[in-house]
């Protein structure tokens, strides 16, 4: 199991360190470890303005997408859970309907709507598009989180003297944080890896996110070692972000709250 998970990561990592000779001879006899490990690819990438630019664009987009989708999704989920109203299923189905179609189908109407709104060729546009994809999931995840928190807690806070809003911010939100962190990770990953919307929305600009840049590089000289190095660099923020957010993801957040 571990082997299956680790093998591609190892291969990717190996290639990223490979010198040219190892890659070229690689076809016949794949060496387990490069002849002369080198950080040349990394050095080259990290000094290339284009790569750094794309990385920053990606990071900005992802963080913006995380923030917007949490701001939109969390209160919506809270309202849906605490103030049950009819038609909730229809509404959530409607919210998630954009994912019924392959992205390549929905991208055209999205570009069409975004263009007059000035949401093409910039980070905000791509982040907004990613939110279209992620908000329904955030709502679903957050609804699950809020459902798992007993309503008693909030009512208890009220009886002890907190208003509804204070009760939400001092009790419900902190208790929900671990679950919401999972939603944040999900949005970050979705945005960080997303290609089609980023590609179309940034088509006529100098901006590109990392997946878009990767695609551009791929289309001319697919150098295994360079690609692998990009991939490694691509996964670093994902791992970092996950680690940071995971601190909040302690299991059993509501343990001991009610009998």
């Amino acid at each position, binding site marked *: 199991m571990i082997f299956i998970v680790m093998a591609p990561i190892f291969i990717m990592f190996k290639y990223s360190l490979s010198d040219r000779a190892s890659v070229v001879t690689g076809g016949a006899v794949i060496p387990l470890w490069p002849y002369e490990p080198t950080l040349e690819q990394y050095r080259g990438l990290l000094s290339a303005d284009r790569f750094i630019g794309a990385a920053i664009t990606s990071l900005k987009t992802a963080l913006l997408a995380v923030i917007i989708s949490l701001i939109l999704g969390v209160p919506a989920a809270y309202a849906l859970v605490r103030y049950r109203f009819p038609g909730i299923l229809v509404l959530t189905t409607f919210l998630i309907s954009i994912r019924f179609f392959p992205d390549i189908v929905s991208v055209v109407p999205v570009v069409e709507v975004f263009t007059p709104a000035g949401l093409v060729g910039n980070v905000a546009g791509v982040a907004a598009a990613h939110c279209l994809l992620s908000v329904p999931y955030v709502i679903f995840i957050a609804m699950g989180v809020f459902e798992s928190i*007993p309503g*008693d*807690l909030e*009512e*208890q*806070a*009220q*009886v*002890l*003297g*907190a*208003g*509804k809003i*204070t009760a939400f911010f*001092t*009790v419900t939100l*902190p*208790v929900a944080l671990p679950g919401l962190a999972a939603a944040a990770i999900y949005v970050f990953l979705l945005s960080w890896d997303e290609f089609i919307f980023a590609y179309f929305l940034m088509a006529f600009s100098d901006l590109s996110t990392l997946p878009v840049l990767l695609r551009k590089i791929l289309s001319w000289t697919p150098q295994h070692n360079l690609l692998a190095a990009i991939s490694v660099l691509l996964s670093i923020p994902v791992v970092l972000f996950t680690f940071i957010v995971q601190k909040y993801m302690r299991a*059993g*957040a*509501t*343990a*001991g*709250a*009610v*009998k």
Partner: protein
Amino acid sequence: MAEVRFSHVIKKYGKNEVVKDFSLTIFNEEFVTLVGPSGCGKSTILRMLAGLEEITEGDIYIDGIKTNDIPPQKRDVAMVFQSYALFPHMTVAENIAFGLKLRRKPQREIVSRIEESLALFSLRGLGERRPRDLSGGQRQRVALARALVLSPKVLLLDEPLSNLDAKLRLRMRSELKRIHRELRSTIFYVTHDQVEAMSLSDRVAVMNEGRLEQLGAPLEIYNSPKNTFVASFLGSPPINLLQARIQKEGETLYVNIGPCKLALSRQFRESYLHCAGRDIIFGIRPEHISIGESGKGKPILATVDVVEPLGDRSIITVALHKIELALITDAQTISPLRTIPIIFDMEKAQFFDRESGENIICKNR
């Protein structure tokens, strides 16, 4: 520190009326207990008083002020939930400090009040723990401490002792009584444990199916229950309710239970004379049946069925011509299948109408 008044309060969930025309006044500094079987609407009544549940009809007054539309945080009513509802992301001390902080008490006061209440509830040394690292009983005490530290006008307790073991429950019971005496809060207490109700309260309110059946001092309710429901709800083992018939022979009234004939003493003659010839339900508490030949009244013979020793006393089930009866005795030598003479203390007996279940005497008063 406050008087609470329910005036014709009704609560409906959709068409389902779970609280029916509930009126009750809890006087300043009084300890009133609401008892009743599960699902009879006790928690709902507390929640309406706390402001967590809308009142369908009727009014609730605290200190003469109508509170129907006052939000919970402005009522100065503290409540301990049936589920404790401890804040899982806060330590015990933070839980207790929650209400004090919202009231913007100075830090020094908060710290000393926390210390006090940790001591009062035997929680010393647990201040830094999280609720998940506490036992059920400790959690319950934290919930109590968190509410009581606020010295609220009205304190609502929803079965606060239900999760404690027997010993701790006894201790917390007297602790509660002492706290009530010291803080002089008006306490409205919910339980379905009738012993708790009897031992703690100034007055007990017995509920059934959303209706207030009887309200009164514990002994008053115990000794003159308004109907068979109240009679059988209070007391353990419960009161014996037997099908009987009142008959007049000459100048004497008799109660006929199966083939047994029990004479009523002269002083009750007046009260029950109008029932002569009627079918009734005869109620007698287990502790009002004694074993032996001597005593007031004529002994009748019964066969011992089951003996349950409790230590100092035993609960004994006897069969009286196929009618089962429970009685309590301190005799140690009773064994099953023996035939023993028993005597009913007719002065303590209750008579209920066969159809309505109402106490015949109460109704006539």
